């Protein structure tokens, strides 16, 4: 059994954990990161790839705005082509009431410095003549875009290693405890002593919090994804809809990725699977938005496992029960865009006990009175 003693132990190896490892090394602390499988192989590696501020809960916008700045420099920082492109994110209205929702959101988002452009049917058709007749208007966020999720997490992990972090893969953490002096984290093949502990275990973050007597109801969330073979470039922007029941983007390579609805998550092994009926439904909905895709061939479907909180925003902040413990989990289907800033925030919390970003809405104590399990359902925007 390997034994490590470090300043900070991190449970998890998703984008939150790996970016935290980087930021903590940059702050000069020693770090051990423990990942159950492979870094960036969970939700962080299989998500839709939407890098979107538009449509977020307003409490997330300050973080999301800060993250957006980081995305511009992320490829250079990670020395990896992360495929980030500010293609814009356009949210479509399929009815007048949808349009009213978009108008109201745009008004309020402006207060957070997020500029959204409202497009009526004519302006929208002029820009995207290939949209189907069901679409009546839209809200465009020109600075949003998309990236390649498969490479971002692993690249963060490699950078963390280059900076000197101890990164252990295939090392599931079985238990962690605080003995007054520090933390002992028991993982397969390795035991870590640390002053601080970061809980970035994604869908398992609630279980980890439970080891420290903190309630955090996390439900498994497994969005259902489908991808076509590469096609000539057509879908110029990342597309969402009011209601969130379908979303579509086209990758640089030309594949059209589409999602909507949920797959299934196996709570035993934590693996998520797509559901065929859901895939067919998302395919139909995509065709109503973009009829020209009728002849495309679907080559794969998949899902992934994220943690969803009852109020659809994550837990980020200091533990209320244990000094030195910091949480960041339950990103509820939209934590990819936030990933780069979550690491910085976690480093701020570990080194200074506070963050430059407003974290009050994300405190774990909001669930202190929560009793019993929680099942999530309905549509989720990414």
């Amino acid at each position: 059994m390997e034994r490590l003693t470090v300043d900070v132990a991190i449970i998890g190896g998703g984008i939150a954990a790996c970016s935290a490892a980087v930021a903590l090394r940059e702050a000069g602390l020693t770090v051990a990161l423990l990942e159950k499988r492979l870094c960036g192989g969970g939700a962080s590696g299989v998500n839709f790839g939407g890098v979107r501020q538009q449509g977020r809960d307003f409490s997330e916008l300050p973080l999301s705005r800060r993250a957006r700045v980081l995305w511009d420099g992320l490829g250079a920082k990670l020395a990896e082509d992360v495929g980030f492109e500010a293609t814009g994110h356009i949210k479509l209205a399929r009815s007048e009431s949808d349009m009213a929702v978009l108008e109201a959101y745009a008004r309020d988002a402006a207060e957070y410095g997020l500029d959204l452009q409202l497009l009526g049917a004519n302006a929208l058709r002029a820009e995207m003549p290939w949209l189907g007749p069901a679409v009546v208007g839209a809200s465009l966020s020109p600075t949003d875009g998309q990236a390649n999720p498969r490479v971002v997490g692993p690249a963060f992990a490699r950078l963390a290693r280059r900076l000197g972090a101890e990164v252990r893969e295939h090392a599931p953490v079985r238990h962690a405890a605080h003995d007054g002096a520090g933390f002992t984290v028991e993982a397969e093949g390795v035991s870590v002593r640390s002053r601080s502990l970061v809980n970035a275990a994604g869908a398992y973050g609630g279980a980890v919090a439970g080891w420290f007597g903190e309630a955090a109801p996390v439900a498994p969330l497994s969005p259902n994804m489908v991808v076509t073979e590469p096609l000539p470039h057509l879908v110029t922007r990342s597309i969402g809809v009011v209601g969130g029941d379908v979303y579509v983007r086209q990758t640089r390579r030309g594949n059209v990725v589409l999602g909507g609805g949920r797959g299934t998550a196996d709570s035993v092994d934590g693996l998520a699977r797509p559901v065929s009926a859901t895939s067919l439904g998302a395919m139909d909905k995509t065709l109503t938005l973009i009829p020209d895709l009728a002849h495309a061939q679907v080559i794969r479907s998949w899902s992934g496992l994220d943690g969803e909180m009852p109020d659809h925003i994550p837990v980020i902040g200091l533990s209320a029960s244990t000094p030195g413990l910091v949480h960041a989990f339950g990103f509820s289907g939209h934590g990819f865009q936030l990933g780069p800033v979550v690491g910085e925030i976690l480093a701020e919390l570990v080194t200074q006990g506070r963050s430059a970003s407003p974290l009050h809405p994300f405190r774990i104590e909001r669930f202190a009175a929560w009793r019993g399990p929680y099942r999530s359902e309905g549509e989720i925007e990414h």
Partner: protein
Amino acid sequence: MSEPVPAEPTLAIVGAGPAGLRAAQVLTEAGLRPILLDEGHRAGGQIYRRPPPGAERPAAALYGFEAGRAQALHDLADALASQIDYRPDTMVWGIAPRAPFGFDLDCLGPRGHERIAVDRLVLATGAMDRTLPFPGWTLPGVFTLGAAQIALKAQGMAIGRRVALVGAGPLLPLVAHQYAKAGATLAAVLDVTPLGAKVTAVPRLALLPGTLAKGVWYTVAGALRGLPVRSGVRAIAVEGGRQVEALTWDDARGRRHRVACDAVGASFGLRSEAQAADLAGCRFVFEPVTRQWQPERSPEGRASHPHVYLAGDGSGIGGADVAELQGERTALALLADLGRPRDAAREARLDRRLARHAGFRAALDAAYPYPHHLVDGIGDDEIVCRCEGITAGTLRRAATERDAREMNRLKALTRAGMGRCQGRVCGHAAAEILARTLAVPVETVGRLRGQAPIKPIPLREPV
């Protein structure tokens, strides 16, 4: 089985090759009416593939010495058609376990998408050629040996006027023989495995003549008839500007050779088409001789999943005769699990024959080892993943510079196996390259995870 068995369980067989047809026969004999799903237009599978109606040729011309067996299988298929729920032109593209047990099959057929709930599943999905990259392998005019054979069986045509064949498996002499018989001009027949292995294996093979064994005999017989057969060749390369113009190679003594040709058939053994078993939740095991992952199968044909039965090349390469025996055997196992009366003598007879074949198969595998040594000769510029245009160099760098130690991670970082074929063509070669670069046994790099659809489906449902 502890769970309740429905009085009339719904049984589905995927694949109407020799394995699937024999399984269907046994189930109908027991008074059941299985659903038989097959992508093909006509039953028969790979080896006994039938030409489209109207383009028939005499069985003897199409199947050679297997004509008798082919005829028997086709007759069986025709006889079964009215006793089973036979669905040709139907691809099973998704399989999902359903509660409390059984499966939902997602099918795309002449009536569009259909979801079929079944209690038990026989998977007899067959095999496809294994490829390895070599210079020029993506040029128009290069086919797999199997494709060369399909052209002959289904369309009655050769892949070119002057054809060179390259391989490492019993299919090579077999296809050479069939092409020669059909009157095609063979520019060269090149075996990348050494003749030595075959000569020592042949006496053992002679003990049990089976379809694939006959292929080995052609190594000798073909040479006798003056076919340009060469063994132990290396450094194969196809030359040509916009399509195949010539094939070059080094002989066993290192001398370079070149023949002009306009088509090349090349492949290196077979790989099981096991995506259906993967989606059904079957456990996979690594088969060290043929160096591939296959669904675990008991000698009687049971999969690790209690309601899945396996037969034929889809769960271990054994050839057509073995596929028939396994189809029969696994259906008997299924009937036993349903609590039907058992015919112990018949089971024992099949088990004995299958055991003999297994020994014989080992000899055959020794005669035609998978030529993984060729992996070292694949240049960095060579494309491995055709769908995505990913080179061997990119794969090697992902291993050395980007921490790729496992196949799914290799795919995530490089896109290899992420295209239209989902790694069915390049997966094995990519695994060999990754393992070789990391200097680890190939089984440690794992295998690509399967997901629906098993093969591409159109975004809009065809009507």
